[in-house]
């Protein structure tokens, strides 16, 4: 049976779908029996999920304006 420590080492392979069927079953068996590891795996998944919902940093208006100027130059350059 996998140990809790092994679960924390395998959690990314597990959530990325990279474990073999056998290891995935061993992983899930451990989770079924261990609430600490269930909480851990839940938190890692919530972390990855939260990362995917971070708003992008703002583009400074000066950069945006400069880009629009460059766009005009590009457009003129094409004739």
């Amino acid at each position, binding site marked *: 049976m996998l140990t809790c*420590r092994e679960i924390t080492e395998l959690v990314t392979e597990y959530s990325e779908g990279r474990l073999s069927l056998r290891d995935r079953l061993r992983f899930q068996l451990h989770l079924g029996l261990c609430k600490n590891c269930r909480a851990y795996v839940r938190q890692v998944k919530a972390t990855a999920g*939260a990362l995917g919902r971070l708003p992008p940093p703002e583009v400074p208006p000066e950069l945006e304006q400069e880009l629009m100027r460059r766009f005009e130059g590009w457009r003129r350059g094409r004739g």
Partner: protein
Amino acid sequence: MPSVRMPPEPTPARSAGSIRRWAGLDDAEVVRGVRSGEREAFAALVSRHGGALLRFARTFVRSEAAAEEVVQDTWIAALDGLERFEGRSSFKTWLFRIVANRARSRLQREGRTVPFSALGPEGEEGDRPAEDAERFDASGHWRQPVDAWTDETPERLALRAETRGAIEAAIAALPPAQRAVLVLRDVEGLETEEIRALLELTDGNQRILLHRARARVRLAIERHMKGGR
């Protein structure tokens, strides 16, 4: 007292309206608009991807000014190369590839190396496990299990300003290779193969870097929740 009526604002409505029109379309259609010289289509693309490019550029170069320059170079190169974009990858991935190339040549010009070139995960921090060994007993079971979080909903974790601040600080504090992989995989949602190609990493390294990075960000949230209670 009668309310004072303000004179109407000069209406930027036409341009804002046009950007909104493009905002509803997918990248391929907006790119077609840019090719035919539509200013608002380009503005819509910049508004859609500009922030993500900036975040990715920051994983290569230290200063904000340098990151902005890389992003500017990227858009100019993208415009010049637009005819060559074939849509085999997503437009975003195509832009990311230009960022990586621009950032690499910039670092090369300055006689510096990419912060994570030739550095496997070993180069960054040895073969330390992602979780502190102290948390486990000799048999590998939890000695200090994780604390329950007040909230485990990804949406709320990302939206609550303080939690988001803790997450962003944790990302900024990651070693460069971990940061680059985490940003591309979890923040931007790129496919693993695309990330390997962009960052020139092996499959194994990419996975170890992602694993360590996620563990660190999870720990940062744990600490934040503990301190915040």
